[in-house]
């Protein structure tokens, strides 16, 4: 045995709640062990389409919240966008249906040992893992400014109870249908300056993460980004999900976002590398 995937199990998880909220489904799964061992930033991988499915790969979902207790024992919560065939199948399942789940997988957000001033930035369903993170940061005495962006109001996932752990909440939409008209990166500089932020946590589309990194660079902030690349296996065996990542030794390696991520040090990721292997990458 090795340290990779050390807490992961493959199990059958029962759906104990499935509610449509805005453009998303909030789904709760009874799953003792994952509920107990998951950390903010981890994800699970779920088989989709049933026994005669033509979809042979799992779908990855960031864990929104996890708990080892509850009326039905341990459980995890996901926020799922009914996007393509797999996620539509999942969100259409009735209560008590069981799905095949592997998790918890991947790296988690690093939690500062001392109270810190943090900004949490989410795009679309990328807000999901940030609420669990916010709860922990808050109990550690951190300041938590949250910025959530999406194309329009319906695609902002920001439940009321989630806002409890947040010091401030800023919403941006591309079409101006809620909050500020614009992108999360438009809202960030002002927030950082006002609150003297120290750490940015982010989760969302690659282009957003890249834009946040350049702001983090400008202000000299630590940036922990949850990176989503297309994943075939989610457990590190297929090498499909890689991004170029600068190691501690200064060498850029094509690194797996499923086991070396999804949470990565934003300043180590070589952004905007879709379709290319950056110069100087190891083994090029």
């Amino acid at each position, binding site marked *: 045995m090795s340290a990779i995937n050390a807490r992961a199990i493959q199990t059958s998880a029962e759906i104990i709640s499935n509610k449509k909220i805005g453009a998303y489904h909030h789904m709760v799964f009874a799953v003792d062990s994952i509920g107990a061992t998951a950390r903010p930033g981890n994800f699970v991988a779920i088989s989709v389409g049933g026994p005669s499915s033509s979809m042979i790969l799992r779908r990855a979902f960031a864990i929104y919240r996890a708990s080892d207790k509850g009326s039905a024992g341990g459980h995890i919560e996901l926020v799922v966008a009914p996007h393509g065939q797999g996620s539509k199948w999942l969100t259409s399942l009735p209560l008590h249906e069981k799905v095949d789940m592997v998790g918890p997988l991947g790296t988690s957000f690093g939690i500062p040992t001392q109270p810190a001033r943090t900004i949490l930035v989410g795009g679309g369903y990328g807000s999901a893992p940030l609420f669990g993170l916010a709860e922990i940061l808050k109990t550690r005495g951190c300041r938590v400014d949250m910025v959530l962006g999406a194309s329009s109001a319906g695609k902002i996932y920001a439940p009321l109870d989630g806002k409890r752990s947040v010091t401030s909440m800023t919403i941006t939409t591309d079409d101006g249908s809620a909050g500020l008209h614009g992108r999360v990166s438009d809202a960030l500089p002002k927030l950082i300056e006002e609150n003297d932020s120290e750490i940015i946590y982010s989760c969302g589309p690659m282009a957003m993460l890249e834009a946040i990194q350049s702001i983090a660079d400008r202000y000299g902030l630590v940036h922990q980004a949850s990176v989503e690349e297309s994943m075939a296996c989610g457990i590190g065996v297929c090498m499909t999900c890689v991004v170029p990542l600068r190691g501690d030794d200064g060498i850029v390696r094509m690194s797996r976002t499923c086991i070396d991520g999804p949470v990565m040090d934003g300043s180590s990721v070589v952004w905007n590398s879709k379709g*290319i292997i950056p110069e100087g990458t190891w083994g090029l």
Partner: protein
Amino acid sequence: MFDYSTNLGKAQLPNPILTASGCAGSGKELSQFFPLTELGAIVTKSIMLKPRSGRATPRMAETPSGMLNSIGLQGPGIDLFLENDIPWLQSQGARIIVSIAGETVEDYASLARRVRNLPNVIGVEVNISCPNVENRGMVFSCQPDTARAAIENVRRNIGGEIPIFAKLSPDVTDIVSIAREVVNAGADGLALINTVLGMVIDVNTMRPKLAQKTGGLSGPAIRPIAVRAIYQVRAALQKVPIIGMGGVASGKDALELILAGANAVSVGTATFGNPGAAMQIKSELETALIERGFENFVDAVGYAHRMETQ
């Protein structure tokens, strides 16, 4: 008692279920889901002489009952592989089949010299379904002469002890003639089949979905192609050990390849959808064989070829 053991040339395995090259990482990643010693053997991802970054992303597209990949043999190169991966697998007690891949005929020779005489390494799979940089990027196993040259070089440099398996691409007009060629060149056995060349176009960007444009198709979609290739080669070369693979996701799928002529079965893409796939297949296959009255696994190998009158 059912005897599940099988032979791959000189190599004796307690059971016929292997992982497919490139589909089990370094082994570490899977060991959380089952002990690697439960496998007949672990086949390592194809290792090359030098470290290799692989192809740019996107490297993957899901297709109906299959997937396309263009990993491009990302890996640490033979030095680090022998320093890190092999010792860890040895420490687990796993039986190992090392897969090697080259860009030139000479690469294969050099790699062969590095992998002979390693504890626990019971065989070498020679992945000749890779582009030959000295010959306009033509895949070695797609031409009889380059296929032969690669295998001859491995044979000559590896010594006589360790069995070598030539892994062939199905993207050829006549796989039987390539199989004959590599067996004549010194391959102890064959690994059939590598992925099928395919492409997906993203209907939103309206460009090929993979950065590399084409990729290898794997998964259940290609199983009928694998069964056909194994059946044809088994019919032509009755004694040659064959490691079968291509779309095996259940015990019955494995049985299909075995009845066609495979002496062992590698599980590739199925592991992506189900980390425990190899173990599930191992137990389903055993049940299926016992239900059909087999007392020894080896009796089922090629059983679909028996005479009509039997």
